């Protein structure tokens, strides 16, 4: 088993090397097949590992790979850990990863960078697997920064476009801000516990003072804010939609952005100890969930809507983590991976059909033209809106029940975010697929359903979006919440829900009723009364404008951070460095120079001559040495 586990990340790495070195010499088909196959093999092994773990009483398997960094008492082996938490993520990454590879064969078929695309995609899967398999805080960091690199490469995949390049760079830099927090957290863990391996750290977690644990937890959370796009480090994610759509589905929805949730769940003991840190996570989470959801209300770019939805859903997951609902959040990561990957791929299929158009105002009436895409996206939309018995309903409800027990205020805010979600998702659905087509004739003529390589993943993901709820059925229904039991060994200090069954029923009823009401409202607005989004900016009311421009956060960051830094940079350079410091040096230097010019008179000025004499001098010294 150990060898097999160690091999899981190897296959995508081979796929990456194959496509990077041979990419130019092989056909697109071969490239796509090798890339997909490498992920498929990893998926198969992950399934085996998963089943092995389920049937075994041993709940964690540590696989040493090699000794990486040692420095005195600091010993960082390159080591993998297979346990219930990592095995769930392995399945998500390789499973959905495989589907998206298949999808990309169709989606990218006309792109000249096809092989390069698959090389990057494979590399991404490799680093993502390292991220979840690592058994200490530095191996996770390898994956953490590695996926950041791949995200950078894939957002800027079409590297001739300056906007895309800017988006890629922004993503990398914002992530690096988070990464610095993460890195400092890791260092503090080492200083505090003398180790950064999970087991040693977690079993001694309680030995440190709460203040230290709080610092560690908050520093790690800064990392999570960057990677999982939470306030204030979320603005890179909507921009990241510049990348090809499969990338948005895989990296910026299903897997990489959930790394923060994985990491916090992994580190759950810190957040259980530190009330302050947990509270911070919950508040940032709910704030992000609400904030991003409101922005999503008025976006017209189909991918941007989904991007803000992702930010919002991630916020909801952090809200769950903050109130101690770790397994519920991981459950939501799973269902979200299903339906959000589905929605993105569906959006990709729509964009494909529309010949690259992403503005939903120019769509409409597509449901007859792209039937599979429409039906699967309908399923995804229902799932994310939280209607039973689709998967999103169960996972979201579980988080909100925990939140309710923890704080009624947070619960209300979480509910509002959910209602907003149902609104903007159905708005998108109605505007895209219903009504009349409002694109160009050329586009209308071009409309077609995507090839099977693209629809097959949609169908599989749709099925998962329907059935995903089975992974975590409500306990108060007297059913088994598999996810919860599965993660029991990982959650060191669990917070059980002690709500009355009546309360749970009530919460569930409220959630369903509110979602249904919002959907009906949306239906009235966009179907019955046929409201159309403003075509021009002038038609927007001031508050709509504010939302449409994402509260001008990018502009604010620009004015408060980027510009002052650039100003400081040229001030330091042009004034401080060249004038002040160097000025002082030159002033004192002129004294030296005076002596220098005096000495120079004694020299012949023939450079060749004194080069030669210098070397001869050295020779004399050497000879002298040996003679003496």
């Amino acid at each position, binding site marked *: 088993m150990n060898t097999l586990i160690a091999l899981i990340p190897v296959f995508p790495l081979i796929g990456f090397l194959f496509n990077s070195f041979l990419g130019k010499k092989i056909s697109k088909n071969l490239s796509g097949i090798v890339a997909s196959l490498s992920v498929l093999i990893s998926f198969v092994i992950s399934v085996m590992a998963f089943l092995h773990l389920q049937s075994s009483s041993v709940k964690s398997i540590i696989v040493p790979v090699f000794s990486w960094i040692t420095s005195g008492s*600091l010993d960082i082996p390159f080591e993998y850990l297979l346990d219930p938490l990592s095995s769930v993520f392995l399945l998500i990454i390789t499973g959905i990863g495989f589907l998206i590879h298949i999808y990309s064969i169709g989606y990218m078929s006309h792109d000249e960078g096809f092989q390069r695309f698959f090389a990057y995609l494979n590399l991404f899967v490799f680093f993502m697997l390292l991220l979840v398999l690592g058994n200490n805080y530095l191996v996770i960091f390898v994956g953490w920064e590695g996926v950041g690199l791949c995200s950078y490469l894939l957002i800027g995949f079409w590297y001739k476009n300056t906007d895309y390049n800017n988006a890629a760079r922004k993503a990398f830099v914002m992530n690096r801000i988070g990464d610095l927090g993460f890195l*400092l957290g890791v260092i503090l863990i080492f200083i505090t516990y003398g180790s950064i391996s999970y087991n040693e750290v977690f079993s001694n977690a309680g030995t440190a003072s709460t203040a230290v644990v709080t610092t560690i937890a908050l520093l790690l959370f800064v990392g999570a804010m960057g990677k999982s796009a939470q306030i204030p480090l979320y603005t890179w994610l909507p921009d990241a939609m510049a990348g090809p759509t499969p990338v948005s589905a895989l990296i910026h929805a299903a897997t990489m952005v959930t790394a923060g949730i994985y990491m916090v769940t992994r580190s759950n003991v810190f957040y259980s100890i530190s009330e302050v840190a947990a509270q911070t996570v919950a508040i940032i989470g709910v704030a992000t969930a609400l904030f991003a959801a409101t922005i999503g209300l008025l976006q017209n770019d189909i991918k941007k809507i989904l991007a803000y939805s992702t930010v919002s859903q991630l916020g909801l997951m952090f809200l769950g983590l903050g109130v101690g609902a770790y397994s519920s959040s991981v459950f939501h990561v799973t269902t979200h991976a299903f339906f959000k990957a589905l929605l993105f791929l569906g959006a990709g299929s729509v964009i494909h059909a529309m010949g690259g158009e992403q503005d939903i105002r120019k769509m409409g009436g597509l449901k007859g033209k792209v039937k599979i895409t429409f039906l699967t996206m309908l399923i995804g939309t229902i799932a994310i809106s939280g209607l039973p018995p689709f998967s999103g309903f169960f996972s979201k409800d579980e988080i909100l029940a925990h939140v309710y027990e923890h704080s009624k205020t947070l619960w209300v805010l979480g509910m509002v975010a959910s209602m907003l979600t149902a609104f903007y998702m159905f708005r998108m659905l109605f505007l895209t697929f219903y009504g009349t087509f409002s694109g160009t004739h050329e586009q209308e003529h071009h409309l077609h359903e995507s090839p099977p390589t693209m629809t097959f993943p949609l169908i599989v993901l749709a099925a998962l979006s329907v059935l995903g709820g089975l992974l975590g059925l409500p306990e108060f229904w007297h059913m088994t919440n598999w996810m919860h039991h599965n993660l029991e060994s990982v959650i060191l200090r669990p917070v059980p829900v002690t709500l009355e069954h009546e309360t749970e029923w009530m919460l569930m009823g409220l959630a369903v009723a509110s979602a249904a009401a919002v959907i009906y409202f949306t239906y009235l607005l966009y179907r019955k009364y046929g409201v159309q989004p403003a075509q021009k900016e002038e038609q927007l009311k001031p508050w709509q404008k504010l939302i449409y421009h994402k509260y001008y956060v990018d502009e604010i960051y620009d004015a408060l951070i980027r510009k002052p830094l650039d100003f400081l940079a040229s001030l330091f350079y042009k004034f401080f460095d060249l004038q002040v410091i160097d000025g002082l040096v030159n002033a004192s230097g002129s004294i030296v120079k005076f002596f220098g010019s005096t000495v120079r008179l004694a020299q012949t000025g023939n450079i060749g001559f004194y080069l030669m004499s210098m070397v001869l001098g050295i020779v004399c010294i050497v000879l002298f040495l040996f003679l003496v």
Partner: protein
Amino acid sequence: MLTLLLIGLPLLASLLLFASKTPAARNLAMIFSLAEFVIALGAWYVFSTNPGSSLLQVNLTWVESLNIHVNLSISALSILMVLLTCFLVPLIILSSFQSEYENANSFYALILLMQMALVGVFMANDGFLFYVFWELALIPIYFICLLWGGENRGKITFKFFVYTLFGSLFMLIGLIYLYNHTNVEGLKSWYINDLYNAGRSLTDTQQSAVFWLIFIAFAIKMPVFPFHTWQPDTYVNAPTQGTMLLSGIMLKMATFGAIKWLLPLVPLGVQEWGNTAIVLSVIGIVYASLIAMAQKDFKRLIAYSSIAHVGLISAGILSANQQGIQGAIMQMLAHGVNVVGLFLIADIIFRHTGTREMSKLGGIRSMNGNFSVLFLIVLLGSVALPLTNGFVGEFLLINGVYQYSALIATFAGLTVILGAVYMLRAYQTMMLGERRDSNITFGSLHKSDKVALMIIALVVIVFGVYPGPLNAIAEQATKEILMLLN
């Protein structure tokens, strides 16, 4: 024996090249430097199998009346520096294959002479000998910059020469002061352990004075803020090979010196003033990173980024703990390779396009994909992505500084962010997007450039994934130094 060979071979090669105006000077230099690299590998082998081997030490009397010895040995720290030097010099020579220099024989003779001095600095165990090699290294680089540099070279090189010489004189005073306090059975001694003992017998005021005398020399050479203003001009104006020698190896004389010739000499001085020096180093990190953001010339950008990197190395050394010093050693190796790679990249771009001004470039990626990949790998090493060589050192360094002070480490850690900002900006401006100037073309790489870059890229990845053997030596070297401190 090996130690003398390591010094003797480049010296002889240098003489040979000076004397003969052969057109094959470049190839000869290449062969000699490769032979030297083989000897260095041999020394590494001997060191790892039998560290106490007599092959690795030599001790001859030089000036009896002053008790000056030619005392050279290879220890854990010196073998790493010798390996770095002997690995980089052939690469540096290789990087010159596409440039035609006048009086090429003298040019290569000076490079080899410089190599001799550098190797000497890293192996010297005698204070006077150390100083001699230290100053000797300045002479060839002075001529390389002066004779083959860009415009303004006279003024700039002179400033560089005087500035660093000025610092070194303080060090000489410091060393003589220590020498005068040695007492080995009634005699004075330049031997390093005797100097250590002398230093530690001083009061803390005396130690503080010696600390500053010696630290100034190192601070100028690295350089540490605010002693850095000679560096950008010198780096930009020197011929590429000169810049590589300066940044890749020569500045390591100073960081090496800080580890071996400063920390154990005056531990109380370090305790007293280390804090100030660390603060200066860390200011330099942020300051130079910000200035790097404002650069238009890529070579100058690398020069400032080097100040930032060295600031972190210096802070790590002065924090005087296992992770700090070991991180510094690892980063010295990584920085040496990466900065040579970056200057080679700047040179390649200049040779292909005729400009180093970033805003004139653009779209190189669509003209030469392989080059852009190699550039990206070196860049990632430079911004210390995990699994590149830069990461191991940087992680340990920030770790070491954190143990000294969490606040200072947070500032030092800003390099993680700012480094990414200026490097990716530069990369995007030059490599990505559309071509800005249709006159600028960028064909395929010359073979020598390709080989050099590929070797560097390979090293970036291999020693990032598996730093094991080098890291183990760095760990041992650090332990030896720390033992002297306690």
